[in-house]
């Protein structure tokens, strides 16, 4: 079975400060990991993914994420937060050995608020 946890329901940061949104996962095989962002009354938008290769993945809007296999984590980071980054962020995982249905399991989401 595959699962993902986002331990923080909310994260508050000041504009210009670095931000981190945490994600840990559990899979049987190798993980495929994703981050999505949801703005109010909108669908989810893809930010970045880790499939294989470099542990540091760069994505849209200046976001990046670091894959850490020993800690089973995939934390989302940005060096300097913007007020416009305020949104709901979802981490998702798929087990490489999970068969051909390619289902993603999502975390419960973390609400990021960037204060001016």
């Amino acid at each position, binding site marked *: 079975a595959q699962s993902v946890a986002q331990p923080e329901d909310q994260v508050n940061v000041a504009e210009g400060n670095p931000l981190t949104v945490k994600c840990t996962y559990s899979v049987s095989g190798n993980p495929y990991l*994703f981050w*999505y962002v949801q703005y109010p009354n909108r*669908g*989810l938008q*893809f930010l970045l993914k880790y499939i294989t290769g470099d542990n540091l993945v760069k994505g849209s809007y200046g976001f990046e994420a670091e894959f850490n296999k020993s800690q089973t984590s995939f934390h989302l980071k940005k060096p300097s937060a913007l007020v416009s980054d305020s949104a709901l962020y979802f981490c998702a995982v798929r087990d490489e050995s999970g068969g051909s*249905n*390619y*289902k993603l*399991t999502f975390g419960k989401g973390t609400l990021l608020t960037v204060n001016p």
Partner: protein
Amino acid sequence: DAGITQSPRHKVTETGTPVTLRCHQTENHRYMYWYRQDPGHGLRLIHYSYGVKDTDKGEVSDGYSVSRSKTEDFLLTLESATSSQTSVYFCAISEGFNYGYTFGSGTRLTVV
């Protein structure tokens, strides 16, 4: 969102009535999914499809059925709507393998 549309965007219905939500894609992707989003639960998978007429249950499938008679359309039916099915429903499509999802804009369903 480009290539995937959901209809209706909003719907209010009465308890006990059947409701059908539609997801339409123009990307010719094989895989389609229905999720519901609820506060404190994130996104939970209802049903998914891996091809025409090929569907399977997700983690919260009770009270829901799906159909996929064409590649481009994936229908979600609430057989007899209950207040617990008040939620925001998202459709997603995927090319599979190492690709993620593209999401629709969602349907906000209220059962009164």
